[in-house]
């Protein structure tokens, strides 16, 4: 489990300057378009090409291979849950069509994960949050997003203290009804403590003229380099989709 903001916050060491200078909003738009483009691919060969482009992009930005492999491990269990029944669901002998379909899902998911890794590891979380704030998203959503993000670290802290307290009382976990009752009550205690803290924070904020909208950093202007960096992946995925639809 993450312990502090530092554990969640991306380490930008090794990330190339051109990736860091890519304006956060345009980066987010490029990632969303690329992911929807990848999802719309229909053949494994073109999905492989998209994966190759994404990995090449990630490596050229300075994202390490180790980090990419760690990210792939996150979705591996879920993908296996989805793809193994797909392959074996038709019985034996296994149909080639099913293997190809499972492979398509697998490759596309890996590609999307690579692109998400680019988004999250070539900028700070604060940059990412600011980019959402400057994308004309309703301010109330951004306020809740930013406050929730801050509360998360308070929860981490409290959870660790409570786990330590439970362990010191020889609580070892498991799924007996008694233990679930303990987990349920611990959750309740955690909420009450946090709610009280949230109330105090809210009163402090209203005392400082909080009107439901948080202030953000000034947005950076999007320059022609940012537009070029956004258009290149968009054009690449568009080209893949067009060629696939035309020739396959």
């Amino acid at each position, binding site marked *: 489990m993450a312990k502090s903001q530092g554990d969640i916050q991306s380490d930008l060491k090794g990330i190339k300057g051109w990736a860091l200078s890519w304006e956060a909003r345009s980066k987010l738009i490029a990632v969303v378009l690329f992911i929807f483009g990848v999802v719309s691919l229909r053949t494994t060969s073109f999905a492989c090409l998209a994966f190759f482009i994404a990995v090449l992009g990630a490596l050229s930005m300075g994202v390490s291979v180790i980090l990419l492999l760690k990210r792939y491990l996150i979705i591996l269990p879920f993908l296996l849950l989805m793809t193994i029944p797909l392959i074996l669901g038709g019985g034996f002998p296994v149909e080639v069509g099913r293997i190809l379909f499972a492979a398509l899902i697998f490759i596309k998911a890996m590609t999307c994960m690579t692109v998400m890794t680019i988004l999250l590891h070539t900028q700070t979380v604060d940059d990412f949050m600011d980019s959402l704030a400057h994308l004309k998203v309703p301010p109330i959503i951004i306020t809740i997003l930013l406050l929730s993000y801050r509360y998360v670290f308070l929860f981490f802290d409290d959870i660790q203290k409570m786990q330590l307290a439970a362990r010191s009382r020889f609580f070892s976990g498991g799924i007996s009804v008694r233990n679930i009752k303990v*987990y349920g009550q611990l959750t309740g205690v955690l909420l009450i403590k946090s*709610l009280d803290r949230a109330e105090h924070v809210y009163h402090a904020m209203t005392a400082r003229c909080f009107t439901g909208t948080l202030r953000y950093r000034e947005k950076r202007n999007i320059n022609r380099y940012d537009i070029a960096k956004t258009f290149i992946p968009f054009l690449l995925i568009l080209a893949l989709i067009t060629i696939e639809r035309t020739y396959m």
Partner: protein
Amino acid sequence: MHVADSVLSVSIAIGTTIAAGGLVTYALKGIKEEEVPKISLLTGAFFVSSLLNIPIGPTSVHPLFGGFLGLVIGRRAPLGIFIGLILQATLFQHGGLSTLGANTLLMSIPALFVYWLASLFPNIASFTKGFLAGFLAVCGGVILLVFLLLFSDHRYGEGAFSVMNILLFAYLPLALLEGLLTGFSVKYLYAVRPSLFNKEG
């Protein structure tokens, strides 16, 4: 219950994104400034819940708290779930961007159903209310997920060991576990802080 990118077809991904946008707009309607801390806090709790692992043998499960959100923040639940899922997708890569809409619907619709059910039967015992909220939220989410998978591709439902069947069997014990956990949690909160469940609270 985090559907990863690429599992759903692009048409389903776009359709669910639009529908989730509508649901979040509904949740935002008439929101008051005073509600922001409570929603934010419970959104944070919803996000953190995915990191709260309960060990079971070689693996572990985590609570979802969709039903719990439905009980506590009512019609604002889709907003909390949507933001919690954004945090989960972006900070820990649980779920995906193209499936953000689908994941929001999978958890928000049962949460709203729980809220509606709780307002219809206000006098149920707190544990039962919590149990039903947790259990129905997970079951509702799985049923919706099965529908989305079948609309995406019929192969998800083919064969005795299909994805659909495995999901239904795997999530049944989890739904019971979620029900118990939510039940005990809600019972405790009703005893200690009943105002949490008031609309004004």
